[in-house]
């Protein structure tokens, strides 16, 4: 049996609920719009997301795994869009956790358990890279603006850090790939979607008409510092690229040259 669902976490939990309730042998779980594997002869069924079902599965999961593992589970779910077969892995992992008499979370000899752990690490790592590589520019109205393009949808995981850190200011962090962002207004943060025709929505760079008067100077100071702090005798571009992959450079003030 192949299930399709709406791509939400509750949807996946609803699939688990259905599989148990209907005693169906589910071999694969995909989002409605994912490509059905070639030569797939299994019957297919779409599972509607039922919050009540999802909740019951979740409550049961809270009993069969530790908080840390629940966290990894949720985080690793954010990884799945880049490797859709991972939805089936998550599905198997959850089902096994629910029926197993012992806790399965330390069973790293099992490929599914290990994959959940490893993929949750990838997601956490990407979220921590937001903390590292977000670069704000100050706009005329005093709001700070940053554009990002993370591999996974990690902005919700990272935003709390910025809200705590810059509690006394107003800022926007915008995910260009998923086309939404958060605006923190000095009190709370709101999810926003910005119209995409302004030039800075393409380049991520505030031009002089909307940037604060001092912005260009601070960019220059930062670039000067960035270049001065490197020891020429130790130049090591390989290590630089390894720790700061090229895909981030576009929005990094110190290296993007805009």
């Amino acid at each position, binding site marked *: 049996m192949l299930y399709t669902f709406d791509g939400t976490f509750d949807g996946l939990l609803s699939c688990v609920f259905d599989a148990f309730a209907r005693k169906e042998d589910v071999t694969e779980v995909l989002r409605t719009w994912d490509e059905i594997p070639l030569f797939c002869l299994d019957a297919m069924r779409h599972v509607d997301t039922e919050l009540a079902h999802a909740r019951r599965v979740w409550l049961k999961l809270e009993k069969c795994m530790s908080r840390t593992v629940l966290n990894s589970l949720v985080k690793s779910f954010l990884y799945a869009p880049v490797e859709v077969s991972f939805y089936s892995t998550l599905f198997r992992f959850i089902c096994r956790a629910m029926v197993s008499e012992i806790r399965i979370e330390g069973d790293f000899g099992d490929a599914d358990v290990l994959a959940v752990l490893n993929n949750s690490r990838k997601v956490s790592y990407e979220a921590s890279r937001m903390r590292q590589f977000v670069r704000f520019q100050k706009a005329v109205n005093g709001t700070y603006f940053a554009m990002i393009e993370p591999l996974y949808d990690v902005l919700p995981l990272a935003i709390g850090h910025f809200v705590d850190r810059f509690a*006394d200011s107003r800022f926007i962090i915008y995910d260009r790939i998923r086309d939404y962002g958060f605006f923190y207004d000095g009190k709370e943060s709101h999810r926003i979607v910005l119209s995409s025709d302004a030039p800075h929505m393409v380049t991520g760079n505030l031009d002089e008409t909307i940037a604060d008067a001092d912005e260009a100077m601070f960019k220059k*100071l930062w670039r000067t510092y960035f270049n001065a*702090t490197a020891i020429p005798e130790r130049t090591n571009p390989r290590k*630089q690229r390894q*720790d700061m992959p090229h895909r981030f450079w576009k929005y990094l003030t110190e290296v993007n040259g805009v």
Partner: protein
Amino acid sequence: MTESTLNKLKILAEAARYDVSCSSSGTVRNNKDKGIGNTVGGIGVCHSFAADGRCISLLKVMMSNVCLYDCAYCISRRSNDIPRATLTVKELVNLTIEFYRRNYIEGLFLSSAIVKNPDFTMECMVQVAKELREVHRFNGYIHLKGIPGASLELINLAGRYADRMSVNVEIPKQKSLQYLAPEKNHKNIYEPMKYINTAVLENREDRRSLLHVPRFIPAGQSTQMIVGASDDTDHDILTLSSSLYRAKSMRRVYYSGYVSVNTYDSRLPALKQPPLVRENRLYQADWLMRFYQFRADELVDPKNPNLDLDVDPKIGWALRHPEFFPIDVNKAPYEMLLRVPGIGVKSANLIVNARRYRALGSDHLKKIGVVLKRAQYFIVCRELPSAVIGDLSPEYVKLRLMLPSGPSRRTVDRYPSLF
């Protein structure tokens, strides 16, 4: 902020870059009362990586490079004819805040040359930290260099604002230090270190029993030794590190491969390249002492005073101790797993968990992250053992381990970024 600040920043960042410490780790402080900044714990945050591959976490800058002293290994020494500059308190505070707001940095790492005298220098530095904390309510990270010879009252004042302080040893042996930096002495270095240690521990005690005692240098202290400017051996260096780590407040000892900045001074070796491999081996050894329960005398001793440059010190130890191996990954205690080349802290943890469910074979180990290429000579697992170090000879294993293994995969144990 003007072009003149820009020039000063360039000069003083270039002067500060030979101090390798940049870490922003060790303090957890949430933002208070809607001020600016917080400090995240754990390993700190690297915001960028410079062209030399080193992490940029803090705005690392000297307050001034106008120096009274003449240390042979230092670019800012009095007798060098170089551009000199001093940043004002206001400039430093402004730069820190504005950089921080743009998420360029985690905070400030301020050091300085000795201007006028140690007390005057330390006082100006404290002023910067004080303004950041009290005027701007800045909760980000502040690392202040303790100026050797400054009064202990000033060190104490600095400690109220700083997350971390460091006094650099620079040269491990007193005799070598006297030779290269005649105006300095170990007493002026160890005295503030000891003072900081006592004060930090007292503060921790007080905070446990009394309410509202402000924190004192919550992220402890660090120090740095220059490698390759004097003839001190790895044995001298690591023995000193290990005794420094005995002070509870000592979090990190940094090793800085000497960059030949003053080639004209005949007291110094003329190095074409800084000794990067040796520096890396020292970091690895340091890492083994802090997280793998190795003692300094297991890594170097008077008979082998220097680390083997060819192999990782963990492999070096394993090769000198074939009698310890092979160990059975399905049974050996955690501490023994840690001694196996190719098994790190992470994989050792996964192994002790996973083996409760099933006997692990080499396939499992590989997926868990064990580097079998190296571990294979030192372990047995579910399958029949392959040839292990006892059957082969240590010399042979060493040769095998040194063979290049393709361009992309790293062949050394994964030590996290070293700065």
